[in-house]
């Protein structure tokens, strides 16, 4: 019974988000241009070296296009609807709903991370395959491992988003912590530079952090750079961090609710 209500939240939010089509088109063009620029920069770097690299130039190109396709799945902003609820005092209604608040907010976040991503990723991937010569998954097993890991990446992103949303109960705007988090996500997920190209000494540190589960893990499974047979241990890393953010979010939420003051009347 409870599951049905969370599913209803996800699908309602999903359908409302699919309405923003012209924003999606503008975003699509931007991301294609971005992808082309980044591909050219990496091609120039690869043509400057003759020594072996931890990742081939062609793999990096596919990695970049995957990054552009699934950009919208990253935890890069906070739920502005929730923010206005917190500002206006409408948050009071959220508290009387007969559902678990954290799960409810996380359901919203799941839809919010998935709908825009799907709208952008499909046309972008079609373009990248046909025009830019993006490679398909290394093997069928790699493709399957990618799909599983990508789902975990979206859940991880939603867990981080929900945690950021919860912090708004303290800060009202939430802009500061979101900016900080997004900065860390950009660098340590692999969005700016694929993680295998980072200096060797930094690899253990990067591997321990949660952010590679958003980008690097699924993309390298796609490329076969991480063999599909290694999926369990990488999935375990993603699940560990999902759990960590959910627990942190729940603790923060229950603390905040103990002292919540509903504004507005």
């Amino acid at each position: 019974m409870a599951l049905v209500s969370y599913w209803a939240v996800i699908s309602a939010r999903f359908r409302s988000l699919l309405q923003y089509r012209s924003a999606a088109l503008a975003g699509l063009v931007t991301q294609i241009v971005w992808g082309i620029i980044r591909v050219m920069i990496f091609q120039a770097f690869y043509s400057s070296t003759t020594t072996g690299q931890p990742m081939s130039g062609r793999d990096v190109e596919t990695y970049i296009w995957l990054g552009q396709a699934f950009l919208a799945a990253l935890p890069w902003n906070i739920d502005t609807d929730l923010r206005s609820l917190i500002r206006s005092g409408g948050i009071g209604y959220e508290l009387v709903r007969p559902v678990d608040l954290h799960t409810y907010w996380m359901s919203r976040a799941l839809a919010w991370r998935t709908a825009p991503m799907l709208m952008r990723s499909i046309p972008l991937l079609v373009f990248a395959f046909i025009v830019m010569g993006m490679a398909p998954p290394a093997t069928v097993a790699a493709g399957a491992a990618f799909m599983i890991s990508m789902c975990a990446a979206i859940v991880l992103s939603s867990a981080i988003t929900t945690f950021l949303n919860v912090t708004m109960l303290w800060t009202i705007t939430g802009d500061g912590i979101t900016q900080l988090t997004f900065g860390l996500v950009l660098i340590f997920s692999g969005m700016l530079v694929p993680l295998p190209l980072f200096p060797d000494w930094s690899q253990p540190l990067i591997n321990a952090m949660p952010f590679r589960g958003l980008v690097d893990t699924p993309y390298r499974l796609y490329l076969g750079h991480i063999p599909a047979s290694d999926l369990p241990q990488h999935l375990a890393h993603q699940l560990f961090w999902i759990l960590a953010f959910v627990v942190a979010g729940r603790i923060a939420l229950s603390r905040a609710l103990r002292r919540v003051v509903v504004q507005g009347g």
Partner: protein
Amino acid sequence: MSVVDSLYVYGRFLTVSVRAQMQYRASFLMQLGGRLIVTAGEFAAILILFDRFGSLLEWNVYQVAFIYGIVNVSFAVADALTTGFDLFGDMVKTGDFDRLLLRPRSTALQLAGQELTLRRISRLTPGIVALIWASTGLDLHWTIPNAALLVASVIGGASLFASLIVFQATLAFWTTETLEMMNTVTYGGVETTQYPINIYRPWFRNFFTFGIPLATVSYFPALAIMGIPDPLGTPIWFQYVAPAIGVGVLVISLQVWRIGVRHYLSTGS
């Protein structure tokens, strides 16, 4: 109105804006920190790639950092001074622009002084750090012509970025909403021109050299200051006059803006 008077009014606008932002100090500091991480991350990416690959075609890390510095300082200056133009689309929609027309100062001046977002200035930090770091590594000779050319290049670059933002806002006079697509050119331009322009394919290079000359106002002066002959073969005199193009485009864009103001019909709401 005299120039001195304009500058005075402009200074007053900015002071008010800065004071308003400092009212939310904690949030402001966190935003500043976040912005710093994002922009520093882009610079870190360059360092990581050079650590891995050693060189970028004929360029070493200091030369690229120098170009990166010029472009980012230029963009930071332009971005901080044109926030009002970013908000302009909304002002047309709500009719708020009408209020600006009633005041006895030029609309461009009022918009430029609308808001000086301090966090936008955070983009200056990595740019300046990159410039200083690069000039120690490059053993540059800071002769008067070189220093003047650096300043001219930043002014030229900032003018060109500002004119793009003004152009984008001007379109709103006719379309009533800002065209998001223009952001692709502006931000894509930053992303592109922070690397030497000769690394790109010719069609793309030509777009940012002749079409929207963002590379022209930063890349060519940088070559002259660093004393490197251009791999693309431009003469040295051109590298010295290139920044003027940016200022020229800004003057044109402000003229187009005036035409827009004359054609402005309030939405009436």
